[in-house]
Every structure is written in structure tokens, then in C-alpha cells.
């Protein structure tokens, strides 16, 4: 066998093997084998290589910039004076949790009005107030 024949045989094998490997049936069989043997490949977000750095970065962010929630005082605990200071002046009754509204309507020709209700010793205390322009108030 001379050198030229040897080269032709090599080429024929190469072409045959390449065609064999790229054959659709072979590809399908390989994928089926991989799935049966090793299961589905997990998404990248579920891999430690992804979520460990992300969670670490989130933790560092929350440590550096903590979220501050405003401390809310229960509405029923406000005194009338506190309510006035906060300019809670309304024409309609203020709905407070656990207290039935006793005021159907309120109006004034003099100034703004305030309705304030409070449960005290199981008694519903109600205040209907008119602001007369700062005089004595």
C-alpha cells in the first residue's frame, strides 16, 4: 500500500465516522441516554455558582442600607390635641378600628370641623369640634 492509498482510506474513514456521529438517530440516542442517566440539567439560577453571590450581595445591601419602617401609633390612641396638631381636620367622620361611627354628618359656617371618637372603658366617647380661627385654641 502506497502513501496515496493510505491517505484515501484515512479520508474514507473520517467521512464515515463524521457522518455517523452527526446522524440524527445517533444524536437522539445520545440525548436520550444522557437524560435517562443524568436527568435534566438544572437552570443556572438554581446553581450555587449563581445564587450564592446574589444572596451575599443582597445581604450586604440590606446591612448597608437597612429598611426603616415608620412606627405607626394606633389611631385610637391619639388625643384630640395630637390629632389637631397633625391637621387631621375632616368634614366626614374619621373611621377608627373597633369603634362604631356615631356621627352621621357635620358642618360649620365658622371654621373647619373635627370628629374624634375613642373607646374608653367600653364607652364610646365622641367629640364633634369646630375650630373658630385660633381663638382660645
Amino acid at each position, binding site marked *: 500500500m502506497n502513501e496515496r492509498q493510505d491517505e484515501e482510506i484515512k479520508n474514507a474513514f473520517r467521512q464515515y465516522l463524521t457522518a455517523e456521529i452527526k446522524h440524527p438517530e445517533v444524536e437522539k440516542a445520545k440525548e436520550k441516554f444522557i437524560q435517562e442517566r443524568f436527568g435534566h440539567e438544572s437552570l443556572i439560577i438554581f446553581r450555587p455558582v449563581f445564587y450564592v453571590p446574589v444572596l451575599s450581595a443582597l445581604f450586604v445591601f440590606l446591612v448597608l442600607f437597612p429598611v426603616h419602617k415608620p412606627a405607626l401609633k394606633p389611631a385610637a390612641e391619639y*388625643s*384630640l*390635641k395630637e390629632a389637631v396638631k397633625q391637621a387631621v381636620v375632616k368634614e366626614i367622620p374619621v373611621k377608627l378600628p373597633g369603634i362604631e361611627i*356615631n*356621627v*352621621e*354628618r*357635620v*358642618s*360649620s*359656617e*365658622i*371654621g373647619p*370641623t373635627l370628629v*374624634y371618637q*375613642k373607646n*374608653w372603658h*367600653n*364607652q*364610646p*366617647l*365622641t*367629640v*364633634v*369640634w*369646630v*375650630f*373658630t380661627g385660633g*381663638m*382660645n*385654641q
Partner: protein
Amino acid sequence: MKLGSKILLGLFFCFLPFVSTLRAEAPVAIKVTAISASNSGSDFDLENDAFRDQLIQLFSYKSYKQLKQFSVRLEGTKSETLTIPGGYELNLVLKAREDNKVRLHAVIQKEGKKFLDTEVSVFGAGPVFLGGPPVDSGNLILAIETLG
């Protein structure tokens, strides 16, 4: 169901709205206490001691002085007018009555101007305080209660 029973049932539902109307027209006794609240002095001059704790809970004035006390009977749609110290008038009209709750239309006015015009429900145990108009060196507070 027999025809007679149906007629009786129909008549019952026809007259049902009037039953509540009749209840609303039953007379109701109301007590009104006029109080002057101010920050001058530190006196509590009130006949009803229960008001003391309630006023402290609701207001921040230093002094409370009882000006006058009224008892009125409200009936039907008839308006009752009380002369309040400071030149004010309080007009009261009974709007409805259900069990322990009385709904009133109350107007505080002076020289034709309505200082406060409101419709409130008064429970037997819990007074309603109407207030704000200036009187003496403080503010007028009207405590409205039902007397059963």
C-alpha cells in the same frame, strides 16, 4: 299557605316601616351640660364626676367649669332650643331611636351663624361632646347624654 294567612303576612310587612316611625316618636329625655374649658387656672368645677375622667381622656385643658345644665324631652320632629351661656343657642331634634341609641340633629348657633351643625348618635352610657365655640376665656363644650 291559605289566602287569609297571605293577606295577614302582607299587611304585617306593609305596616312594618311604621313601627320604627312610632318608636322614633316616643319621647326621649336628654341632659345637656354646658362646660367652659380653658387653660387659665386648674379647677374642676363639675357636678358629674364621670365627666372629669372623660374630659381628661379627650382634651388637654387645665380647667373645666360647669356653666349650666339642662334636661329636655324630645318628641317627634319638634325642635327644642336651649339658651347656652355665651349667647349661643342649641337646637335639638330627635331623628330616630333604636334600643339604647338615640340619633339627634344638633345645631349650635349664635347671631344667625351656625357654629356646628351635626347629626350624632348618643348612647346611654357614652356622652357626645360638641364644642369649640369661644366662651369666657376658653372654649364651650356641650356634653349630651340620654336619660333612658
